[in-house]
Each structure stands twice: as structure tokens, then as C-alpha cells.
């Protein structure tokens, strides 16, 4: 198939699947909390709705940055789709995408001129604690498989079995990242309701539409990467079931856990990351990991 068509199809799938999964996430949270919750398709309708709303730009913003950052956000997650589901390229590109995402989160808050956005921007720096376990997880995948290429990691797993059984603690570190990025997560300190909507507070209309579009793609890409590098070669049905199961698990966790304060959030993430990191090193040196 033509590469451009392949990219377009994958981006549309990522957006639709991501939106429906985030809708399911809200529904699960609501049912756990004994509320009826919105329809599953609500997140998708919400995202589409914003594209047709009036785009107001506050006077306090740093205009070029304020507008540009939203398109950069959408662009980096489209790059994530290209590097992951389309090209099966290097994990380092996806790590780079995530690193740039943190910068975008930071700058989106700071460019808005709103105190809520600025506080969220400061917290975005703190929440970089989630990147360390992610990087460590990628390093362990490299140490075991000897490659950073997603296609080769899939081939490795088709011969040696899924990596979740070889390096489960590294998978747990990656799963921490997924929990962190899920809506209403205990670690979602940048979007704490104390800060209204955090770095998104001052983005309206079309700009918010692009943010929701990016969030949906981001959720899909993160789940896809997790399933691909830890659960081996999967069919489309396997991906679908895996994504629904992870959305269920994060929904349950987020519905029953309050948002932690920034210092508690960072310390919890670093503690879990450190335990998993040293646990995996121990497993490698004691020969548990072949």
C-alpha cells in the first residue's frame, strides 16, 4: 500500500480507537463509582465538537507559541503512529516523541499566561519522573533482545516468547507510564482539578479539538507500544482485547484512587521505578533472565 495512505489510515484508526477507548475508560470509572456515566462514544463526539466551536484567544497569551504548540502536539503523536504501527521503527523515536510531549505539555501551560496553566507547566517538569522508568524499561528491552527496532523485537518474541514473562518488572515500569497518562490518574498532577484543566485550561475551540485529537492518538500509541514490546506478535483481535483490558485496569485504578499531591506522586513513581529497575538488574545478574 502507498505509504501516505498507510499513514492516513493508521492515524484515523488511532484517533477513533483512542477516542472510543478513552470513552470506555470514563464509562468504567463511572460504573465503578456507581454512576451511569456518559456513552462510550461521548469522548469522540466531544473531540469533534471542539473543531466547530469558536476559537477565542486570551489577551495574555504568547500568541505564536500558544497556537503553534497545539499543532506540534498533534504532529508529535502522528510521528508516534508513523514510528510505531506504520513503520515498526526504533523505540528511541517513541521515547523521543514522549520526551517532546513533556516539553509541549510544559510550554502549552507557560504560553497561556494563565496561573493555572503556569502551575501545570511547573508540575509537568516534576512529572518527568515518569520518563525515567520508561527509559529504563526501553534499556532492559534492548539488553534482552539486543535491538531497539520494534520489528526485530516482535521477531525476537515470536521465537523466544513474550517479553512480559522474561522481564515482568520492566513491563510494570512501562505500565506505570500508561497509568500516569490515563485520564484522572492518581499521578496526573498536571491535570489536577485544582488547576481547572491544567495546561489545557486556556485552549478553546479548534485548539482544544487538536489537543483532544492528540490525546486519543497518544493513548492508542502507548497501548500499542506496550502490547507490542511485551506481548509479542499480536493479531488485530489480540490488540483490541489487550487495549480494552488495559483500559479496564486503568479505569478501575483511577476510579478508586484520588489524585496524589505532586511530591507524593513523584516519590511513588520513583520508588516503584527504582524497585522494578533493581529487581530487573537482579534478575539479569542472577540468571533468571536468559
Amino acid at each position, binding site marked *: *500500500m502507498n505509504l501516505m495512505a*498507510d499513514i492516513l*489510515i*493508521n492515524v*484515523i*484508526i488511532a484517533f*477513533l*480507537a483512542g*477516542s*472510543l477507548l478513552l470513552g470506555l475508560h470514563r464509562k468504567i470509572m463511572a460504573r465503578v463509582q456507581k454512576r*451511569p*456515566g*456518559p*456513552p*462510550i*462514544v461521548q469522548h*469522540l*463526539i466531544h473531540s469533534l465538537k471542539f473543531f466547530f466551536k469558536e476559537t477565542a484567544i486570551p489577551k495574555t497569551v504568547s500568541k505564536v507559541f500558544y497556537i503553534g504548540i497545539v499543532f506540534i502536539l498533534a504532529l508529535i503523536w502522528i510521528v508516534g503512529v508513523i514510528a510505531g504501527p506504520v513503520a515498526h521503527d526504533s523505540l528511541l523515536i517513541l521515547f523521543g516523541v514522549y520526551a517532546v510531549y513533556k516539553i509541549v505539555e510544559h510550554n502549552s501551560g507557560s504560553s497561556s499566561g494563565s496561573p493555572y496553566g503556569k502551575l501545570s507547566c511547573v508540575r509537568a517538569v516534576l512529572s518527568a519522573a515518569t520518563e525515567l522508568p520508561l527509559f529504563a524499561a526501553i534499556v532492559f528491552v534492548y539488553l534482552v533482545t539486543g535491538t531497539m527496532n520494534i520489528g526485530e523485537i516482535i521477531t525476537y518474541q515470536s521465537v523466544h516468547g513474550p517479553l512480559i514473562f522474561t522481564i515482568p518488572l520492566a513491563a510494570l515500569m512501562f505500565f506505570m507510564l500508561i497509568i500516569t497518562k490515563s485520564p484522572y490518574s492518581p499521578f496526573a498532577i498536571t491535570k489536577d482539578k485544582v488547576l481547572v484543566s491544567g495546561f489545557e485550561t486556556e485552549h478553546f475551540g479548534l485548539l482544544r479539538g487538536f489537543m483532544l485529537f492528540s490525546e486519543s492518538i497518544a493513548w492508542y500509541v502507548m497501548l500499542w507500544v506496550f502490547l507490542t514490546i511485551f506481548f509479542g506478535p499480536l493479531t*488485530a483481535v489480540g490488540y483490541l482485547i489487550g487495549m480494552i483490558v488495559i483500559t479496564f485496569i486503568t479505569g478501575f485504578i483511577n476510579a478508586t484512587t484520588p489524585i496524589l499531591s505532586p511530591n507524593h506522586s513523584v516519590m511513588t513513581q520513583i520508588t516503584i521505578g527504582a524497585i522494578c529497575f533493581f529487581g530487573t538488574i537482579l534478575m539479569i545478574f542472577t540468571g533468571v533472565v536468559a
Partner: protein
Amino acid sequence: MLDYMIYILAFAVGSILGLVYSYKQHGEPFVAVTKLNAPAAVISIVGWVLAFNSGNVILSAVGFILAGFIMGERPGYGRKETAIGLIIAIIVYLLLRFTV
């Protein structure tokens, strides 16, 4: 991948149509409906069975629209019907897979 895009698009369109139709039919505040809606159950069964077992992109897409239509109804409606449709479709899938 084109077929998966068509399926997911069909499901999303079906869900949105189901939501709009359902709100037109039922404007009252939230009620957890306990009664089974027979026509909706039939649509759901046909939808899910076609979606999983037709083996044809167009028929599966029609199936996903129908299944999405019932599953996408406003909260409180279409839950039992969706469950029945899904269970029957999975049973049919397993029967076709292991007997034919």
C-alpha cells in the same frame, strides 16, 4: 488496515446514530431499563453476528453499524441487548470455527 478502519468508522457512526435516535425516543432523566427491547435485541444479534462472522468487509461494516447503533444508545438503554448480541455472535463464531 483499510478494513479495520472501515469497521471502526462504521461502529463510531452507528454509535452516534444510536445515541441521537435514543435521545429522540427517550427524553426523560436517567432510568436503568430492566425490560428487554425485543426489536433492539434482534438488531444487536444481527449486527454482532454479521460483524464477527460474515467474512465480507461490507457486510461486517453493516454489522458494526447495527451493533454500534444499539450499543451507542443513551446510558441505561441497549445494555442487555448488546450483551445478548455479543454472546450469540461469539457462540456462532466458535461454532463456525470448530465445527466447519
